């Protein structure tokens, strides 16, 4: 297809408006069907048995008693999921994570599963499975895991990315390095150097809907999977590979999804449910409990980061360096690498060096969490930047403006930037009334910048025009927060019709070509590109049908405002034909009218944001409270501004929880102590103020409407903005996230005592 994705600067009539979302009515009436809201006739209940040990050899599993329990239809272990990964190390880790193979690697690691006629039988059956463990020494802290004396989680791991292969195995799977220039020389030119170390604790995406699926494997090798996921096509590929099914015979339907934030980009229990169904010969519904969600899905990395930044008296940064250690759970990851790439991406630096270390720990497998790895790196860097500005006596916003990256700057991760939005978000922050608002006693203000890459990827869309002139849009990117509304707006814009004439649905894997998942802020960016392309293809056909009706050459027919128009004086008496009129006659002009599009939506364009935050700290308890919060972010073009604001506010709120309260707490025994919403407390309504937003629109040159992804960047600055505000309010630099009351109080008391 000849599709030109370049920004065209058109005037919009639908895009930028704020209509009701098409799936809204189902969601406010309780009719929308999420992962656990679907049932199949004769379905069994699946339950998973999990390791209570952080690290243990599985010597023996005896399932015989469970199998004999009345009502139990299948019991599986790793033996029922043979290794079909064919040397694909990443998929082998996914398989091992779904069901432990010989060794349990964290508290909550699946070791067996049952399918039974009801939940209480399934629970009883789990108790009858006898497992003999040999408990091994464990390590859960990222710094401890790097020590030479730490227990080895996988003795086949020899650190990649070193000049020479190390002689001994370790828990460090990989070293990565980015940067340019000569930091040693750069620090030599600095008048002031700030050097600090930071830690961040592990957090969970905290989606309210636990993982849930219904799996049905038929005797003929066909299968169906109903599942809450950010990417049903990816789940299909992974499940098919792990189960040895043919991908096209496994139909995966994505349910409505109750939050994902990166945590539903990954299969956890779905292959287990399919394996249970295959063994039992019946459908199996498997829903995780909240405890399982915390112990065995999702979390982000815990980190330990050293930052060193030097500047001249005039405020020019001369060199910047960071060492970043990220935990990845018991399997190799690339999380520190991403942190190392994003850490200094906001700045124009002649000399910069970042080094990342991926570290294995006995914790659940790290999964992506909204702009994965970037918030922790930004916390460390932006805290040090604030300290440096303070030591130089320069306003923190001015200091950042002076050193901000711009078009033509070599980014800290390598390439030279095109048009970018960091400068405009900083200028907007400088002039925002929030920056000048007075502060009260025990209050402090902080600000910080954030960067994220944004992705595009494989995308496929079908646009079908009904004979009544209504339009159905079938997309393959799961709608996690209003993308059916934004994509309908885009289709309405391109076709020149009313938004109400359209209905967008998320198609299952058998109804549409492959789509990458909704991650990397790509949902609206990539599917809108495919929607525009599909609409343009439909318009070609609509013009052709009008030309047939009029019996004139198609080149004389143009498409304007939802109508075919015969161009030229000689056609003066031909009345324009609406989409509806052309559709009504489609049966006799060549059959159904549709537009399809299959493309790779590359050129997503990097994204920047600046956040401002006011905090009040109670010096008696150490409790920090957000009293005002402002998000300023470049959207390229906000297709549905209300949902763009929603993304900004939601990311900020997640960042606030991470900064102030959320953390995985492990005991000495390596077991997670707070696997529930009571003890892992995410922000509630009374914890937060209104979150103000300012949308900047610096068009992305690689999208016809200038759209950039907006979903993730909003979680990058909050950790740092809040840390800067707490530090200003408490009068002491906070270096450990979350800044929970005991940590803040300890810092205040240490400062008083010192």
């Amino acid at each position, binding site marked *: 297809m000849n599709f030109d994705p370049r920004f065209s600067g058109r005037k919009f009539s639908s895009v930028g408006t704020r209509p009701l979302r098409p799936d809204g009515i189902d969601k406010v009436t309780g009719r929308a069907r999420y992962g656990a809201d679907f049932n199949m006739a004769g379905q069994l209940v699946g339950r998973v048995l999990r390791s209570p040990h952080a690290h243990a050899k599985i010597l023996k599993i005896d399932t015989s008693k469970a199998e004999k329990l009345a009502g139990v239809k299948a019991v599986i272990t790793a033996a029922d999921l043979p290794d079909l990964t064919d040397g694909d190390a990443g998929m082998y880790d996914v398989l091992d994570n779904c069901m432990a193979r010989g060794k349990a690697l964290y508290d909550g690691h699946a070791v067996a599963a049952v399918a039974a006629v009801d939940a209480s039988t399934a629970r009883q059956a789990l108790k009858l499975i006898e497992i003999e463990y040999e408990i091994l020494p464990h390590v859960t802290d990222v710094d401890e895991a790097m020590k030479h004396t730490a227990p080895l989680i996988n003795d086949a791991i020899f650190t990649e990315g070193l*000049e020479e292969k190390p002689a001994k195995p370790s828990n460090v799977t990989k070293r*990565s390095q980015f940067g340019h220039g000569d930091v040693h020389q750069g620090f030599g030119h600095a008048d002031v150097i700030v050097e600090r170390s930071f830690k961040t604790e592990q957090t969970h995406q905290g989606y309210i809907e636990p993982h849930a699926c219904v799996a049905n494997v038929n005797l003929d090798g066909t299968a169906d999977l109903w599942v809450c996921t950010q990417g049903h096509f990816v789940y299909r590929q992974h499940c098919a590979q792990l189960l040895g099914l043919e991908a096209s015979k496994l139909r995966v339907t994505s349910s409505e999804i109750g939050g994902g934030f*990166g945590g539903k980009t990954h299969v956890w229990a779905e292959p287990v449910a399919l394996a249970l169904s295959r063994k039992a010969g019946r459908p199996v519904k498997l829903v995780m409990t909240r405890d399982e969600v915390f112990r065995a899905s999702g979390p982000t990395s815990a980190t330990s980061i050293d930052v060193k930044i030097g500047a001249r008296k005039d405020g020019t940064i001369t060199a910047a360096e960071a060492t970043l250690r990220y935990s990845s759970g018991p399997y190799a990851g690339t999380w520190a690498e991403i942190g190392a790439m994003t850490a200094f991406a906001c700045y124009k630096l002649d000399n910069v060096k970042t080094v990342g270390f991926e570290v294995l720990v006995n914790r659940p497998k790290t999964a992506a969490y909204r702009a994965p790895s970037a918030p922790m790196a930004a916390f460390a860097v932006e805290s040090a930047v604030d300290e440096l500005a303070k030591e130089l006596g320069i306003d923190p916003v001015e200091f950042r403006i002076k050193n901000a990256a711009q078009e033509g700057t070599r980014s800290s991760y390598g390439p030279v930037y095109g048009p970018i939005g960091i400068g405009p978000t900083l200028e907007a922050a400088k002039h925002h009334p929030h920056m000048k608002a007075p502060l009260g006693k025990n209050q402090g203000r902080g600000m910080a910048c954030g960067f994220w890459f944004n992705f595009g*990827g494989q995308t496929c869309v079908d646009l079908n025009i009904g004979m009544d002139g209504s339009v159905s849009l079938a997309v393959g990117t799961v709608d996690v927060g209003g993308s059916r509304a934004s994509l309908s707006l885009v289709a309405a814009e391109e076709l020149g019709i009313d938004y109400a004439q359209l209905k967008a649905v998320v198609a299952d894997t058998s109804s549409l070509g492959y789509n990458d998942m909704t991650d990397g802020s790509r949902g609206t960016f990539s599917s809108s590109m495919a929607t525009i392309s599909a609409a343009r293809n439909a318009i070609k056909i609509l013009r052709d049908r009008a030309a047939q009706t009029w019996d004139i050459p198609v080149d004389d027919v143009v498409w304007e405002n939802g109508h075919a128009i015969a161009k030229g004086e000689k056609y003066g008496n031909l009345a324009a034909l609406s989409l509806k009129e052309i559709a009504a006659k489609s049966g006799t002009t060549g059959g159904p009218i549709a537009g399809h599009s299959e493309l790779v939506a*590359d050129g997503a364009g990097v994204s920047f944001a600046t956040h401002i935050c006011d905090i009040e700290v109670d010096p008696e308890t150490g409790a920090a409270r957000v009293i005002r919060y402002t998000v300023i972010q470049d959207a390229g073009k906000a297709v549905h501004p209300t949902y763009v604001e929603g993304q900004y506010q939601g990311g900020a709120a997640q960042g606030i929880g991470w900064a102030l309260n959320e953390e995985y707490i492990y005991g000495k025994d390596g077991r997670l102590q707070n696997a529930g919403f009571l003890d892992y407390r995410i922000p509630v309504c009374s914890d937060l103020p209104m979150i103000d937003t300012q949308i900047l629109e610096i068009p992305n040159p690689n999208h016809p409407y200038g759209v950039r992804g907006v979903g993730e960047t909003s979680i990058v600055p909050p950790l740092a903005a809040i840390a800067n505000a707490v530090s200003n309010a408490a009068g002491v630099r906070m270096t450990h996230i979350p800044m929970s009351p005991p940590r803040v109080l300890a810092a205040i008391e240490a400062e008083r005592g010192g």
Partner: protein
Amino acid sequence: MVEVTLWGALGQLAGGQSKVEVEAKDIRELFRKLAEQYPGIEPWIEKGIAVAIDGTIYRDTWSKELPQGAEIFLLPRLAGG
């Protein structure tokens, strides 16, 4: 002939060079020639490498042309949330 900048780990596989010259008109040809010249890089291409052309990152469009004089930068392919 385009000049291609490699990130750290990839540079080691190309004999410690951070920049290599390759005769390639698009990303597909670039990957093919890199794999021929530096076989160690091939598994990385299989796993996924992104190519930044004048600052815009391409992850999957292997047909993308490499303009003469453009800045070509290879990057690891990342995960998103």
